């Protein structure tokens, strides 16, 4: 029986625009406005607590959007802190490597050293400094907070909201979910593409029948939902999430059958078992649920299903280039058979990712040409409508309104 699925929408659909102006999107002026009014005012996902397992563990995160380099470090007291990766003496980059474990950070330039709490511990040849006020010379902190193991940074001098306020209902709806998974692979890719186009490519399911026809031909939708309508979409004040439909009529292929014989079905296949799942997972409790996609505005995505999740963060380098970072996370394997099963899903997923990335640079070039002044969005692309509404609201906010942001 051919059929369809009517999407259940939750949140404010009243003020969405379906025809979106995009002719300004790739201008330098727009990028600079996004940088100051969106990225500098937002909580941004920069790391994971699991990357900092012990006192002294640190990692360096480059944040190209804000020309920043930050150190995330777990102090001797167990607290995770963040600092600008800048020696307070003359501004040299303090930590040159990407990660490790140290009790202090010494600058190569003149040997100044800082503790894991940011305190300046050593000023070499200190007597030669006149009128020294060491309280001014500690590392410059960056505001951070943690949600379910995800470290978020806020580069505003004084954040106008806590992370809990920023995330809203999301804050309390995923207790324990992400802790079930371990990192399997991390990735980094630079595209010659505006960041909005890049993140938009991952927040609608309309494209899956077409661009993913080669790599995942029949995992979603099926006879009861041939156009793969998303069963549930929810818009928050800034963020959004939606559920994707599985295909109960999916035909398992030979190598895939081997993978599921030795491990649990992960992307591209799906296990819709909801036992023990927190309320944020499949929030509409859709039948034939495959996985959810959540955009944490402005630039992070989490795709999550049973036994796995994927994280992606889109960092605008400028108006024409985007750095995409992230990783795949899976259930802890108990044996090598499960590891090999997971490898099969990860290797199939690489084709899916490449397909998603394949359109970006051509789209960007078309935008730069000025041929299109608007894009026309369907109800299945409502996440993009919401993205541009939130973006527009933040860009148009003046200083007085900023407090709301």
């Amino acid at each position, binding site marked *: 029986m051919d059929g369809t699925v009517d999407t259940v929408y939750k949140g404010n659909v009243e003020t969405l625009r379906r025809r979106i102006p995009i002719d300004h999107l790739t201008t330098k002026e727009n990028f600079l406005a996004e940088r100051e009014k969106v990225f500098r005012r937002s909580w941004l996902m920069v790391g994971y607590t699991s990357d900092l397992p012990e006192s002294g563990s640190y990692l360096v995160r480059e944040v190209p959007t804000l020309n920043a380099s930050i150190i995330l470090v777990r102090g001797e007291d167990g607290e995770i802190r963040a600092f600008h990766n800048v020696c307070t003496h003359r501004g040299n980059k303090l930590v040159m490597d990407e990660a490790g474990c140290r009790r202090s950070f010494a600058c190569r330039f003149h040997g100044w050293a800082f503790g894991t709490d940011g305190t300046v511990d050593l000023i070499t040849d200190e007597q030669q400094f006149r009128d020294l006020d060491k309280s001014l010379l500690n590392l410059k902190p960056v505001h951070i907070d943690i949600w379910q193991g995800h470290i978020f940074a806020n580069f505003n001098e004084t954040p106008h909201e806590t992370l809990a306020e920023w995330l809203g209902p999301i804050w309390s709806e995923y207790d324990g979910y992400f802790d079930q998974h371990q*990192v*399997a*692979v*991390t*990735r*980094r*890719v*630079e595209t010659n593409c505006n960041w909005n186009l890049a993140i938009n490519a991952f927040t609608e399911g309309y494209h899956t029948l077409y661009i993913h026809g*080669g*790599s995942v*031909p029949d995992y979603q939708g099926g006879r009861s939902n041939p156009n793969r309508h998303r069963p549930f979409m929810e818009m928050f004040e800034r963020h959004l999430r939606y559920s994707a439909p599985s295909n109960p009529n999916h035909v398992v*292929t*030979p*190598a*895939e059958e*081997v*993978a599921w014989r*030795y491990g649990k079905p992960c992307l591209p296949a799906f296990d819709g078992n909801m036992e023990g799942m927190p309320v944020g997972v499949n929030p509409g409790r859709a039948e034939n649920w495959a996985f959810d996609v959540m955009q944490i505005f402005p630039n992070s995505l989490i795709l999550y299903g049973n036994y796995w999740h994927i994280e992606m963060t889109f960092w605008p380098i400028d108006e024409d280039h985007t750095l995409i970072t992230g990783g795949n996370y899976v259930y802890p*394997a108990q*044996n*090598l*058979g499960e*590891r*090999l099963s997971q*490898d*099969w899903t990860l*290797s*199939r997923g*690489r*084709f899916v*990712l*490449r*397909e*998603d*990335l*394949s359109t970006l640079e051509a789209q960007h070039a078309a935008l730069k040409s000025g041929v299109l002044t608007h894009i026309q969005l369907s109800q299945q692309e409502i996440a993009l409508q919401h993205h541009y509404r939130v973006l527009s609201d933040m860009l148009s906010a003046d200083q007085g309104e900023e407090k709301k942001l």
Partner: protein
Amino acid sequence: MSDKFFSENFADLERFAPDWVIGGIVERQRKRADSELATVRQFFEDLFPEIDRIITYLNTVPMDAMGGEDKNLYWLVVTWNEMSHPIDLKWEETDETWSFPFDRIQLWERAPTD
């Protein structure tokens, strides 16, 4: 030092080494993309009957105590996974040449012992 890739119990698999024992994630993708479909299909079909025997054995190996020969078996199956997709998906090529180039994506894969 032995020049064998696998232990005595898997000596019959030596015919797949070293070509199909590939530990690097980019190298595996390159091997697939650079190979003829008929070559990939031949490897996929030749190793398929041995997969259960290999994984059944690997499931007895502690993940934190893999020897070199065990790792070679592991990478053989991982390479088979990589080669399985164009066959499972009934492609006419071994790569989607129109898609985003795989070597533009930097990947860091956990070790099998992690």
